[in-house]
């Protein structure tokens, strides 16, 4: 009964307490109580505010992370695009350098009418057998290419055209065993025949014993036989095999052309090789 009456009084008591507090505050008696409460509340507030700040920081970090990730993805995409661009430009640069070198070669040999061609060997045209050394070019009869025309790069002799189609041709490299080129050394003017070997390293045979041949000598086409123009670089002598009982000496020739990385060649179209005569009676 008494409790029931108290419960009915609670709203009035609360209102009274508020009014009393108001009066106490107005009377300036609130500060000590406020100080007491503040002393207890401030650390809590600080803790809560720090916690909130940390939570906010975390959410901000998450937002930043998302943005950074997005930005990173954009930058990676941009980077990949730029890398591709660099590769493309480098490819163009290499191609331009090759063309410039070939042009220099053409200018330094003004007597030749030179037809430029891209080797398609890298794409479609190396010989499938280990025992043969040919490359296929992307120019043929339509471009004026004919059988036996010499093929060169700015670094030296590559070979000669062995087969021609309308828009392709095949080059017999000087490293093939079927190839032979009349050659002369730079210093002693020793003559011989540069022939391919199965391992791809040509040799200069039939050098007379009396001629002096040294390691380091450069070897050029001699023009003898009429199959190749004169003065085209073939390679450098790396070893000499001399036997007193033999009539001739032999030298190993390291070609100046890198046959494993042939990309572009020049075909000398105005040179007319002397065709081999068929044996009599044929």
């Amino acid at each position, binding site marked *: 009964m008494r409790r029931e009456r108290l419960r009915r009084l609670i709203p009035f008591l609360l209102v009274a307490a508020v009014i009393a507090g108001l009066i106490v505050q107005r009377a300036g008696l609130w500060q000590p109580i406020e100080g007491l409460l503040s002393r207890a509340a401030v650390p809590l507030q600080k803790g809560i505010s720090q916690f909130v700040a940390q939570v906010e920081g975390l959410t901000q970090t998450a937002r930043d992370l998302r943005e950074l990730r997005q930005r990173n993805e954009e930058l990676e995409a941009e980077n990949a695009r730029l890398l591709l661009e660099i590769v493309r430009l480098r490819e163009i640069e290499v191609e331009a350098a090759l063309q410039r070198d070939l042009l220099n070669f053409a200018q330094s040999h003004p007597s030749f009418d030179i037809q430029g061609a891209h080797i398609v060997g890298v794409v479609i045209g190396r*010989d*499938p057998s280990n025992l043969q050394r*040919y490359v296929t070019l992307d120019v043929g009869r339509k471009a004026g290419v004919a059988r036996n025309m010499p093929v060169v790069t700015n670094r030296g002799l590559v070979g000669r055209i062995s087969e021609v189609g309308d828009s392709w041709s095949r080059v017999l490299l000087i490293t093939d065993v079927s190839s032979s080129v009349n050659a002369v050394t730079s210093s002693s003017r020793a003559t011989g025949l540069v022939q391919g070997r199965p391992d791809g390293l040509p040799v200069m045979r039939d050098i007379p014993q009396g001629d002096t041949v040294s390691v380091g000598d450069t070897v050029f086409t001699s023009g003898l036989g009429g199959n190749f123009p004169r003065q085209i670089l073939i390679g450098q002598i790396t070893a000499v095999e001399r036997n007193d009982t033999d009539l001739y000496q032999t030298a190993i020739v390291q070609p100046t052309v890198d046959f494993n990385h042939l990309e572009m060649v020049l075909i000398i179209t105005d040179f007319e090789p002397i065709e081999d005569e068929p044996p009599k009676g044929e």
Partner: protein
Amino acid sequence: MTIYLVIALLAVVGLVQATLVPLVAVWGVFPDLPLLLVVSWGLLRGSRQGLLWGFVAGIIVDLFSGAPFGAATLPLMAVGFMAGLGETIVFRNVLLLLLAMFLATVVYDLLFLFMVQISGDLLIMKEGTGHTVEWSGSLARVIGSSAVLNALLALPISGGMRVLDRRFRHQGVGRVGL
């Protein structure tokens, strides 16, 4: 229909052989994929199939090669046929398989050189110039290394061919001609 599949497969392999394979030379030589395929198939399916695959692969290789036409076809047919004589026996033993591939490469390369020599001699008689062959140099510097390399590749290639065999045997594809 089935022969077209064989032609398509061997044409792709021939194309790869004439473009990419020479770029991955080991010991100065590169693998001979058409030969590996023909020999593996002959060992799996017998002489007639080996002969047929050798014919198709040989024609394709000859198209890409600077060697006289037929220089690859006849040797590949012969090697495919001979491989078929070891059908079902060779695949029981890994060493036998390696030995078979080694010998097949040696026989193929020698026959190839023989063909080049014959046609070269004929050309020289007719035109005064032609292909020449250096037997000892080729044997010492190329054929040995090439045979070892092909023998090493026999396992993965023949494994792939067995998968192909199983797949097409169930579907009835691959039993072509002859």
